[in-house]
């Protein structure tokens, strides 16, 4: 019975903590995001996440030897962001 009460108290505390966390959103932290090889300008302008293990970001890049920008995308596979399609 004592264990049950303790378990209920812990569960209630967890609910309270969760509610607090949802109210004050956690800060954003940097994750590793690749730049296309040989580039000197990169920008991501759009993003869409369809699932925890699938998200896309799109933008444009400029090769250090070029004047014009080229489009590129990177994809989150659940563990890392990678340029897509991958270089062969």
């Amino acid at each position: 019975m004592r264990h049950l009460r303790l378990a209920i108290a812990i569960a209630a505390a967890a609910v309270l903590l969760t509610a607090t966390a949802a109210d004050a959103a956690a800060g954003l932290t940097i994750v590793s995001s690749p730049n296309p090889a040989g580039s000197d300008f990169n920008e991501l302008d759009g993003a869409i996440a369809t699932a925890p293990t699938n998200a896309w970001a799109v933008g444009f890049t400029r090769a250090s030897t070029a004047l014009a920008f080229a489009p590129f995308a990177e994809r989150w596979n659940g563990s890392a962001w990678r340029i897509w399609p991958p270089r062969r």
Partner: protein
Amino acid sequence: MADLATAPVTADDNRLHAVTMISANDGWAVGESNVFTSTGAVTSGLIEHWNGTAWTKATSPSGEPTGARLLAVSAVSTSDVWAVGAEHWDGTAWTLVPSPTITTNNAQDSLTGGVALSSTDVWAVGQTLANFSTITTLALHWNGTNWQIVSSANRSTTVNVFNAVTGSAPGEPLWAVGQGGNANTLIETTTG
């Protein structure tokens, strides 16, 4: 052959920047209207609604600040839609919702992306000019009651911007993307 839907406007120069669809007959597009005057262009927000057949111009909220541009739109439901920066559709009317004042310099803040994951979990991202010297990332969160600044990181000592934000659902990874210095992509994450 696709229909070419004409979006109605009255100002001199009109631009739509973003669109979202809740269903086939309920969509919103947002942007800006510019009226040319002898002293220059006067910019205000532009909101249009798709009813499945046509686009009609919606009434923008009263009290909208001069120079307002709407750069993103996201919907929780047919009666809970957000336009960034910080205008809300409750199913009946668009209203302004106050966003926090940034103390370092609130003259050059801008919000460029937004996503509404639920009625109590909405995000807006952009940039601010910190201490009049460094452009830094800016993230705001709506908790159902008010907008609050959420801490975010910077990769460059000069220019850091968020251009878009996305998340698949509340409680799942939230992603803000942009640029950290000219040469580098920037992606940051938290839990939506």
